[in-house]
C-alpha cells in the first residue's frame, strides 16, 4: 500500500530540495550577494509547480485510447504521450484568443488608432528602466550590424537616438580620442569591416571561448556592473588581436631596419677587417635609398608623415592581391625538343589507333557519347516502334559524328617549310626547279627568287595596303609574265579562275602561297574566314585541274593538295565540307563512272584525312563512294578497268593502316582478272558474283606484249593501236595481281582469310594456266610469286584457325523477384514505391488534419466569442443594475431625508403647538 498523500508530498518536497536544512545567516547573505538566492528561488518555483501538477489528479488526463499491450506495430510517439493536460491547453488557447480575437472584437467597427510599436511597450513584465536599456542596446546594435556587404546606404543613419540634441553614439568619443600616431588604431581603421568579419570567422570556436574567458576577466575589473553583449565582446577581441598583430609587425619592421643598418655597415666591417679605411661615401643614405624599393625609400625619407603611412598601407594591400610570381619554364635543349616532338607524334599516332578502333578519345579530349548512338539497340528493346536499323546508324540522312581530335594550337603545326609563307625561299626554289626546268631560264629564276626575297621581307605589310593593292592586280601583272605580288582572296571558284587566268600553271603554287601569305589570319580578323573559303576553292580547283587538263601536272596538283592539307589544319571544317561537297556531287551525278578529277579528290582524301578512323565524316563516305563504284560500275572497255585499277589501289591505300576488309575490292579484281584472262573460266566454279563485260576485253596472249607501270593518263586515253591495247591489258593484269599480293598481306590476319582467298587462288591458277608458255616472263613471274605468297598465307591461316569463341560473356543475371525487405520497418511510415502516389497521400492526410484542426479552432473561436459577448452583456447588465440600484437608493435616501424632514417639521409644528 502506498504511503498517504501527505507523506508523499513531504517526501517529494524533500527530494526536490524545496524544504531542507535551514541555512545560516552568513550563508544567506553570501547567496544574496552572488545572486545564487535568486537562482535558487527560480528553481524552487519550478520544482513546486511540478509537484503541484503531480499531485493534482485533474491536471493530467490520460489519452482516450489506453494502450493495453506492447505491440511492434505501436508507434513510439503514441507511447510517449501518456496523457494530455486539458487545463493547460485550454488556458493557453483562451489566452491566445484573448490576445487576438478579443482585440479584433473590441476594435471592430472602429477606425484608426495608434499602434505603439516601441520595443517592450506592450510587455508588462518589463520595468521602464529595463525597457529603456533594451531600446538603447537595440539601437546601438542596429548601427553595428551590416545588412549586406554591398549596402552603401548604411553609413548615413536615417535616425539616431539623441539626448538633448546630442548624438548618443558610443564611438563618437572614441573617434575623437583616436590617436593618429598609433599604428594599431590606424591599421584598425584601414581594415574594412569585411576583413574584420573574415578574421572573426577564422577564429576557431575554442579560441573564441578562451579569449572570451580572458576578456571577461579583464573587463570584469573595469566595469563589473554591466554584462557585455556578445558583439561587443567580439569587437574587443578583434581589436585586441589586431593590436597585437600590429605590434608584431612593428617589431619585425624594427628588426628589419636594424638589420639593414647592419648590412650597410658590413662593407665597413670588411674594410676594417682588411685593415683599410674605406673612402667615405658621399651620401650613404641616398645610395641606400636607391637600392631600396622606391616607395619604401620615399617612406623612409618622410618617416613621420601620415600620408606616407597611408600610402604604405595601400601598397601593402595591393601587394596582397598581387599574383605570386612563378618560376618560368626553362629553355629547352635540342634533345628535349626532339624528345617532346617524338612524344607528341606518338600521342597523335595513339589517338589515331584509338579512333581506328572506334574508341572514345582520352579524357582530355572532348568526349561525345557516340557509343550510345551506335549501340543503343539494347535500350530500344522496350519500344517496339523503334527502327532496329536506325540503331546502327542506317537511317537515311543522319550521320553520327565521332569524337575528334580538338584542333591543335596553331603554333604546334608541323608544316613543311615550303607551305609556310615565311621562309620558303630555299625549298621553293628547289620545288620550282623540278617543275619548271624547261620553262624558265636560269636568270629568270634568279630574278624570281629575288622577288621571293622581297615578298618574304615585306611579309608583315598591313592588310589595308594589300586590300588596296588587290584592286590593282591586273595592273601589277606586267607584260612579260612576271607575277604580281598581291592577289585578292577569291570568294568562289570563278573568281579564282579569273585571278589565275593569266598565270601559267607552273606559277600557281606561288600565287596560292602569296594569297595565303597576304591573308594570314594574324593580319586581319576576317582573314580566317577568307582563307577557309580559299581552302574550299582549292579543293574544287584540284578536281577542276585534273578534269580540265589533258595531262594534268601532278607536281602542281600535289602542291595544291599539300596547301589544302596545311589549310585543313586551321580550317578543318571548311576543307571537310569542300571534300564532302565533291563526294556528294560524285554520288549524285556519276556514282558509276568516276572522272579523273574524282579520283584525284579521292586520293586527296586519303592524304588529308585519316582513312583509318572507325568513323570519319569525310573518309567514310569516300569509302562508300569507291566501294559503290567498284561494286556496280560497268566493265566494258579497258579504260573502265584502268579506272577500276586506280580505285582498287586507292582501297588498299585507304586500308593500309586499319586493314579493314572490303568485299567490293576482291569482287572487282577477280571479275576484272576473269574478264582479262586469255581463256574463259567456267562461271560455275566461281563463288563470287561474276559480271561479264559486254565486249570482250580478253588478253590476246603473245610474247610481244610487255607489262609496264600504269599511267594515270591511261584512264582517259584510248590506246592508239592493238599492240598498245594489249600492253595496257597485260599491265592491268600485273597491277591487279600485285594488288592482290598486297591485299593478301593486309588481310592475312583475318579469320576468314581462307574463304576470301580461295577464290583468288582459283582465279590466279587459271590465269597461270592460260599464260603458260604464251606470255612474257615479266608478266608470269609476279603472278607466280603472288600465288606462292597466297599459298603460304593460306597455309598459315589454316594453322591458325580455331573454332570461334565469341560468347565468353559473363552470364546475364536472371531478373530477381525477391521482395524487398525493410530494416526497421515502421508500420506508420508509408513505403510506397510510387513516389508520386506517396506524395499525394501525404498531402491528403495533411489536408485532412489541417481541416480538422481548423474546424476545431473555428468552433472554439465561436464559443469564445459567444462567451465574451455574454460576459459583456452581463457586465453591462450588472452595471445597469448597479446604477439603477444606486439611483433607487439615492431617491430613497432623498425620500427618506424628505420624509425625515417632514417628520421633523411635523414634529416641530406639533412641538410648536
Amino acid at each position, binding site marked *: 500500500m502506498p504511503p498517504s498523500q501527505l507523506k508523499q508530498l513531504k517526501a517529494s518536497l524533500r527530494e526536490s530540495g524545496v524544504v531542507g536544512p535551514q541555512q545560516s545567516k552568513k550563508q544567506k547573505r553570501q547567496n544574496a550577494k552572488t545572486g545564487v538566492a535568486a537562482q535558487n528561488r527560480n528553481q524552487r518555483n519550478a520544482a513546486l509547480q511540478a509537484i503541484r501538477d503531480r499531485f493534482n489528479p485533474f491536471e493530467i488526463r490520460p489519452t482516450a485510447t489506453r494502450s493495453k499491450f506492447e505491440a511492434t506495430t505501436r508507434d513510439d510517439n503514441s507511447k510517449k504521450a501518456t496523457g494530455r493536460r486539458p487545463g493547460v491547453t485550454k488556458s493557453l488557447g483562451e489566452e491566445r484568443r484573448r490576445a487576438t480575437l478579443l482585440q479584433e472584437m473590441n476594435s471592430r467597427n472602429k477606425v484608426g488608432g495608434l499602434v505603439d510599436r516601441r520595443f517592450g511597450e506592450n510587455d508588462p513584465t518589463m520595468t521602464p528602466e529595463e525597457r529603456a536599456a533594451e531600446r538603447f542596446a537595440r539601437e546601438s546594435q542596429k548601427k553595428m550590424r551590416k545588412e549586406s556587404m554591398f549596402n552603401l546606404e548604411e553609413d548615413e543613419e536615417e535616425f539616431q537616438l539623441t539626448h538633448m540634441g546630442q548624438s548618443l553614439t558610443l564611438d563618437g568619443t572614441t573617434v575623437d580620442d583616436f590617436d593618429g600616431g598609433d599604428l594599431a588604431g590606424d591599421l584598425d581603421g584601414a581594415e574594412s569591416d569585411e576583413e574584420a568579419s573574415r578574421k572573426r570567422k577564422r577564429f576557431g570556436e575554442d579560441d573564441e571561448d578562451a579569449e572570451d574567458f580572458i576578456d571577461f576577466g579583464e573587463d570584469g575589473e573595469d566595469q563589473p556592473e554591466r554584462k557585455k553583449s556578445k558583439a561587443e565582446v567580439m569587437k574587443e577581441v578583434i581589436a585586441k588581436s589586431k593590436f597585437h598583430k600590429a605590434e608584431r609587425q612593428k617589431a619585425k619592421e624594427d628588426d628589419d631596419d636594424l638589420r639593414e643598418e647592419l648590412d650597410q655597415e658590413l662593407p665597413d666591417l670588411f674594410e676594417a677587417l682588411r685593415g683599410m679605411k674605406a673612402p667615405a661615401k658621399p651620401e650613404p643614405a641616398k645610395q641606400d635609398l636607391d637600392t631600396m624599393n622606391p616607395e619604401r625609400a620615399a617612406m623612409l625619407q618622410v618617416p613621420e608623415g601620415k600620408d606616407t603611412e597611408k600610402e604604405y598601407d595601400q601598397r601593402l594591400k595591393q601587394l596582397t592581391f598581387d599574383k605570386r610570381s612563378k618560376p618560368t619554364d626553362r629553355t629547352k635543349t635540342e634533345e628535349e625538343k626532339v624528345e617532346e616532338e617524338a612524344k607528341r607524334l606518338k600521342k597523335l599516332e595513339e589517338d589515331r589507333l584509338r579512333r581506328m578502333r572506334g574508341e572514345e578519345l582520352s579524357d582530355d579530349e572532348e568526349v561525345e557519347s557516340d557509343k550510345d548512338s551506335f549501340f543503343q539497340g539494347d535500350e530500344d528493346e522496350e519500344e517496339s516502334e523503334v527502327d532496329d536499323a536506325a540503331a546502327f546508324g542506317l537511317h*537515311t540522312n543522319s550521320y553520327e559524328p565521332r569524337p575528334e581530335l580538338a584542333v591543335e594550337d596553331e603554333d604546334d603545326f608541323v608544316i613543311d617549310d615550303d607551305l609556310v609563307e615565311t621562309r620558303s625561299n630555299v625549298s621553293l626554289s628547289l620545288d620550282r626547279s623540278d617543275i619548271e626546268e624547261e620553262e624558265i631560264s636560269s636568270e629568270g629564276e634568279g630574278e624570281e627568287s629575288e622577288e621571293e626575297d622581297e615578298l618574304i621581307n615585306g611579309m608583315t605589310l598591313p592588310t589595308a595596303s594589300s586590300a588596296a593593292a588587290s584592286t590593282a592586280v591586273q595592273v601589277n601583272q606586267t607584260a612579260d609574265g612576271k607575277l604580281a605580288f598581291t592577289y585578292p582572296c577569291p570568294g568562289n571558284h570563278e573568281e579564282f579562275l579569273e585571278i589565275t587566268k593569266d598565270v601559267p600553271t607552273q606559277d600557281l603554287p606561288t600565287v596560292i602561297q602569296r594569297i595565303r601569305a597576304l591573308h594570314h589570319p594574324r593580319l586581319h580578323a576576317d582573314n580566317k574566314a577568307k582563307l577557309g573559303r580559299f581552302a574550299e576553292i582549292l579543293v574544287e580547283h584540284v578536281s577542276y585541274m585534273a578534269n580540265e587538263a589533258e595531262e594534268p601536272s601532278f607536281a602542281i596538283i600535289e602542291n595544291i593538295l599539300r596547301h589544302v592539307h596545311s589549310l585543313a589544319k586551321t580550317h578543318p571544317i571548311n576543307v571537310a*565540307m569542300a571534300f564532302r561537297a565533291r563526294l556528294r556531287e560524285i*554520288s549524285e551525278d556519276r556514282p558509276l563512272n568516276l572522272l579523273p578529277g574524282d579520283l584525284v579528290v579521292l586520293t586527296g582524301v586519303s592524304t588529308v584525312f585519316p582513312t583509318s578512323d572507325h568513323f570519319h565524316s569525310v573518309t567514310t563516305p569516300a569509302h562508300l563512294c569507291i566501294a559503290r563504284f567498284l561494286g556496280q560500275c560497268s566493265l566494258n572497255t579497258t579504260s573502265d578497268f584502268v579506272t577500276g585499277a586506280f580505285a582498287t589501289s586507292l582501297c588498299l591505300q585507304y586500308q593500309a593502316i*586499319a586493314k579493314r576488309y572490303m568485299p567490293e575490292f576482291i569482287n572487282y579484281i577477280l571479275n576484272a582478272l576473269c574478264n582479262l584472262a586469255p581463256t574463259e573460266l567456267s562461271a560455275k566454279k566461281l563463288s*563470287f558474283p561474276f559480271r561479264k563485260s559486254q565486249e570482250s576485253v580478253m588478253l590476246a596472249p603473245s610474247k610481244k606484249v610487255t607489262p609496264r607501270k600504269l599511267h594515270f593518263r591511261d584512264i582517259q586515253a584510248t590506246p592508239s593501236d592493238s599492240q598498245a591495247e594489249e600492253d595496257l591489258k597485260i599491265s592491268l593484269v600485273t597491277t591487279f595481281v600485285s594488288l592482290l599480293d598486297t591485299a593478301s598481306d593486309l588481310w592475312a590476319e583475318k579469320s576468314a582469310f581462307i574463304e576470301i582467298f580461295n577464290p583468288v587462288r582459283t582465279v590466279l591458277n587459271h590465269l597461270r594456266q592460260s599464260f603458260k608458255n604464251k606470255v612474257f616472263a615479266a608478266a608470269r613471274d609476279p603472278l607466280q610469286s603472288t600465288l606462292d605468297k597466297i599459298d603460304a598465307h593460306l597455309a598459315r591461316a589454316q594453322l591458325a584457325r580455331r573454332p570461334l569463341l*565469341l560468347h565468353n560473356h559473363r552470364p546475364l543475371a536472371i531478373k530477381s523477384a525477391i521482395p524487398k525487405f525493410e530494416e526497421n520497418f515502421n508500420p506508420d511510415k508509408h513505403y510506397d514505391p510510387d513516389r508520386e502516389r506517396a506524395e499525394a497521400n501525404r498531402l491528403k492526410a495533411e489536408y485532412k488534419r489541417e481541416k480538422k484542426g481548423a474546424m476545431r479552432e473555428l468552433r472554439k473561436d465561436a464559443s469564445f466569442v459567444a462567451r465574451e459577448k455574454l460576459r459583456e452583456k452581463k457586465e453591462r447588465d450588472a452595471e445597469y443594475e448597479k446604477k439603477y440600484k444606486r439611483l433607487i437608493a439615492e431617491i430613497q435616501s432623498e425620500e427618506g431625508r424628505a420624509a425625515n424632514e417632514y417628520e421633523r417639521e411635523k414634529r416641530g409644528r406639533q412641538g410648536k403647538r
Partner: protein
Amino acid sequence: MPAAVDASSSKKRKSTKNAGTPSKRRAVAEEDGFAETLSKVQELENQIAESRKYYNNIATLISMLNVEPSVKKPELAVAVSLCRVFSRLMAAGNLSESSRDAENEKIVVAWLKERFSEYQRALLSIIREADTTSQVTALTLSMRLVKEYITHIPGADSSIWSGLFKDIIEALVEAQDGEEVRAEFVSKFMKEYEDIRYQTFTQIAEYAATRRKTDIIEILISLLSACDEAPASDHEIDTENFFAKPDPSNKRLRTVHGHKRRAQDAWLAILRNNLSQAQRKALLRIMVHTIEPWFTRPELLMDFLTDSYNEGGAISLLALSGLFYLIQEKNLDYPQFYAKLYSLLDADLLHSKHRSRFFRLLNTFLASTHLPATLVASFIKRLSRLALNAPPSAIVVIVPFMYNLFKSHPTCTFVMHREIRDKKFAAEIEAEGMEDPFDPKETDPTRTNAIESSIWEIETLQSHYHPNVAAIARIISEQFTKQAYNLEDFLDHTYQGMVQGELGTGEKPLRKVPVVEYQIPKRIFTDRLLEEDGGVDSGAGSFMRGLWDFSS
C-alpha cells in the same frame, strides 16, 4: 437516238479536224475540200434517210471511206455517217428479214447485210492499220455497232459476240502502234462494263489457244493484267453495268464464278503459250496480286510455278512466292523444297534486285521452329559465305537475319561459340588448325556439316570498312539480349541511301570538327624530295606511287 449519235459524231468530227492539219498551206486547200466532202456526205446521208431508193448511196459512202492498206488517213466523217446510217437502219428493222417479207425485200435486206459486213471489215482494217486517232474512232464506232446490233436485233448477241466482237479483239491485238487504242479499249470498255470484260476474257482465251508470237502475247498479258481487280466472291454482277442488254438465258454472265472462270481460262491459255524469259519474270512478279485472285482453282498454276521454280536463277526467286502461296493454301506438296531453296543461295543472290523479296520469303520459310538445326545451320553458313562478297546493304540484312535464326534455333549457336572438350581433338586443332567441316558443294542442306563449322566470315566482317556494317556484324559476338530484330528495317538499304545517309542532301554544318591527318606528306604523286629520304620512298602513299606513274 439519232441525237445522241449526232452528238458523238460531231465530237469525233471535231477531233478529226484537229488531227488533220499537218501544215498550214495545205490546210487551207484541204479545208475547202474537206467542207466540200462534208456537205456531200451529209447530203448522201440525208437522202438515205429520206427514201429507200437512195440505198445505193451506202455503196458510194463505203467507197468514199477509202480504206486502202496504204492510206493511213481514212475519211472518218464518212465512217461516222455510215455508222449513223446503219444504226438507223437497224433501229427501223431494215436490216433484219422476216419470212413474211416479199422476195424483193429479202434481196434488199441481203444486199444491206452485205454492205454492213463490208463496212465492218473496213472499220476493222482501220483499227489494224490506220493512225492512232482513226483507230480510236473506228473502235468506238464498231463498239457502237455491236451495241446497236444487240439492242435492235433480238437473239443475235451470241452471234455478234463471236462474230464482230471477236474480230474487234483480234484487230485490237494485232493493231499496229495500237497502244493507245488498246488503252482506250481497256479504260472505256473493258474496265467500265463487266460483260465486255467477260467477253474479252472469252475471246482472249480462244485467241491464245494457238501458239502466238511473243509480242502478241506481250499485248495479251498487258490487256489481261489491266484487269487487276478480281471481283470478290460476294460481288453482285449487275446488268445495269452492262454494255448491252444480255441474253437472259446466259446465266454464267451473271455469276462471279463465271467471270472468274473466263479469266482463269484466258490466263491459263497465256501461261501455256510460249513465253519469253522476260515475260515469265513479269508474270511471276504479278502472280500473287493480279493473276491468282482470278483463279477459282489456283492449283492449276502449279505446273507453271514448279516449272519456273526449277528453272533456277531469278525466275526461281520470283516463283517462290507463288509457290509458297500454293503450299500454304492449297496444300501443295513440293518435295525437296528446302534443298531447292538452299540452292537458290548462290553468288548472285545478294546482288540481285529481288534480294529483299527473297529475304522476306526466306524469313517466312525458316520461321518454323520445327526445322532441323542442321538445315538452319547450313543456311546460316551459306549466307555468311556469301556475305564475304556482298555489298554492305546485303550484309546489314544477313546479320540480323542470322541473329533471329540463332534466337529461334539455339542449337545453331555452336557456330558462334564452340568449346572443344575432347582433349585429343583439341590437341589436334592446336597443332594443325581447324579444317572447316562445312562442305560448300553439298546440295542437301541437312548434310553440309555446317553445324560443325564456325562463321569466321561474319567475324571478319566485323572489320568491314563501313562502320555501321561493322557494328551490325558485331551483334553476333555480343550478348543476345534482344528478342529479335525487325528484318523489315534492314531490308531496303542501298549504296545511294547509305552515301546520302553519310553526306546528307544539302550543306549541313558538321557537328564535330573532323580530324585532319597530322602529318603533311612530303609526296603524294611525284618523287619530290626523294633524295632527302635517301632515295627510298616509304612515306604514306608510297604504295600508290609504286603502282602508278603520275609523271606528265
